[in-house]
């Protein structure tokens, strides 16, 4: 196997913000290597330090300690002017889009080209091309206020791609969008990653976003990396508490079910809906019902996975019989103590 090339290397990144008294340590000694051409996810609860971490990559936020490398070049030691040069090869998009409100879609995409000194006669043509790439070829003259959220994010993506960056940083890029629009934007990002080979870093608090487009993911909790690995691996068997919280509670309303609940299990089976006959078979075989608390089906890396939270019989013997039935059929089962 050939060694993967590293695009972004964060080395021992710590960041604290000075407070009235003392300081607030937001990131603690973070080491991450992001490979060339991958879609890397960073997920965590609100306030975990995700935004701070991604802003440390392009040095919108200066880490208190540690180094940042982009494609082998150390950014943390560069002078302002050289750093600005490097930033032309890092695009960034935001939850709130941050478009220039007094410029049209086309002019917004022209902006990074203007400031990076691209020749005037080429700017417009290139900007138009990019808007066509993101599917907005017919809205060149529209102002941001005339566009929907999804369209605005597409303009922002086109703008971020204008200077042909090596890296695209996305800070909660779909958090302000509805599910359909989110799916569209994520598809576009995946497409960009595959067609242009741009390395993408996705920050989110939604596991669904990670599953949709990421190859690898880092779970950040309290300013530290709790877990890092392939998306499939972490989805199937999260090792840390932070990981379990994110994976189990995805899409469920926590307040609706009051924990802790006894005899509750999380089952994961390959092949989505095919899990339901297995459960049915189990109930018939053991002559007892299982209470299905929640369930969903997901595509991960092109494979279908079903996940269910079920509550099994009070009776210990029946319960064990049920579990044995599931394990025989290559279903992952794990007892959970809070739902």
């Amino acid at each position, binding site marked *: 196997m050939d060694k993967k090339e590293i695009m972004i290397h964060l080395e021992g990144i710590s960041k604290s913000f000075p407070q009235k008294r003392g300081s607030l340590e937001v990131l603690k000694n973070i080491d991450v290597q992001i490979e060339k051409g991958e879609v890397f996810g960073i997920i965590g609860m609100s306030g975990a330090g995700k935004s701070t971490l991604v802003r440390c990559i392009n040095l919108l936020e200066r880490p208190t300690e540690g180094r940042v490398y982009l494609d082998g070049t150390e950014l943390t030691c560069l002078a302002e002017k050289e*750093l*600005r040069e*490097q930033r032309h090869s890092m*695009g960034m998009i*935001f939850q709130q889009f*941050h478009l220039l409100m007094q410029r049209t879609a086309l002019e917004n995409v022209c*902006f990074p080209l203007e*400031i990076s000194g691209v020749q005037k006669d080429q700017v417009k043509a290139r900007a138009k091309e990019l808007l066509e790439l993101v599917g907005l070829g017919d809205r060149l003259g529209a102002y941001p*206020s005339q566009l929907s959220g999804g369209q605005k994010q597409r303009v922002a993506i086109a703008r*971020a791609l204008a200077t042909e960056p090596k890296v695209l940083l996305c800070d909660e890029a779909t958090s302000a969008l509805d599910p359909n629009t989110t799916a569209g934007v994520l598809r576009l990002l995946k497409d960009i990653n595959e067609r242009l080979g741009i390395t993408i870093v996705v920050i989110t608090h939604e596991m669904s976003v990670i599953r949709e487009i990421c190859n690898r993911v880092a779970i950040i909790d309290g300013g530290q990396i709790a877990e890092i690995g392939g998306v499939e691996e972490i989805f199937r068997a999260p090792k840390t508490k932070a990981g379990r919280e994110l994976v189990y509670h995805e899409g469920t309303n926590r307040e609706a079910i009051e924990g802790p609940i006894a005899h509750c299990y999380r089952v994961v089976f390959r092949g989505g809906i095919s899990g339901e006959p297995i459960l049915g078979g189990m109930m018939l075989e053991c002559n007892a019902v299982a209470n299905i608390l929640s369930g969903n089906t997901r595509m991960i890396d092109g494979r279908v996975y079903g996940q269910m939270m079920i509550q099994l019989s009070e009776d210990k013997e029946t319960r064990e019989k049920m579990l044995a039935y599931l394990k025989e059929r290559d279903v992952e089962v794990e007892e959970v103590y809070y739902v």
Partner: protein
Amino acid sequence: MFKEGLLALVGVAFWESIYMTIISTFIAYIIGLPMGLILVMTDKEGVRPMPIVHQTLGIIINIVRSVPFLILMLTIMPFTKLAVGTTIGPKAAIVGLLVAAAPFIARLVESSLKEVEKGVVEAAQSMGASPLQILIKVLMPEAKPSLLVGSAIAVTTILGYSAMAGFIGGGGLGAVAINYGYHRGQTDIMYIMVVLLVIIVQILQELGMQIAKRTDKRL
């Protein structure tokens, strides 16, 4: 007879006021706009933080702004004399107007540019924009509608100042109101001047707001 004389008098005074206001506003912007831009750029949260420059400029502006216009005009008389060679008449009045209006404009400009969302500036920084590029291509164009509203406020305020400058022989509507209405007791003339001033302010203000609204692309 009386009517004809009055009409001529009002006509001259009217144009004097307009002239004085426009010239002063124009020059005051040449001084005040850069001051405002420097305030924004050098702010602690700004694109190029420079605390000492920011604070010094801020203090100077506050001092000038805290002196009432009429008293300011009197206190800067030595400076006025130095600048235009006289302490009375329209020229002297314009010096006073500039000194008073420039810091005011600086604050107007500052508050307009501060309305620009921080995220937009950050987005520009993330693309590698320099502080100067951010100022010229982001802050000023994004703040344009607000800057225009500010300029309507500035021009009407300066018109008011110019009327007060009538006291030192500045000419214009204010001078007529003071000379005829106050010194000679012809209060009817004074009221006519006041009504005229009110009308001019209304027109300028409305005009400024309309232009600002037209240029704003945020709907």
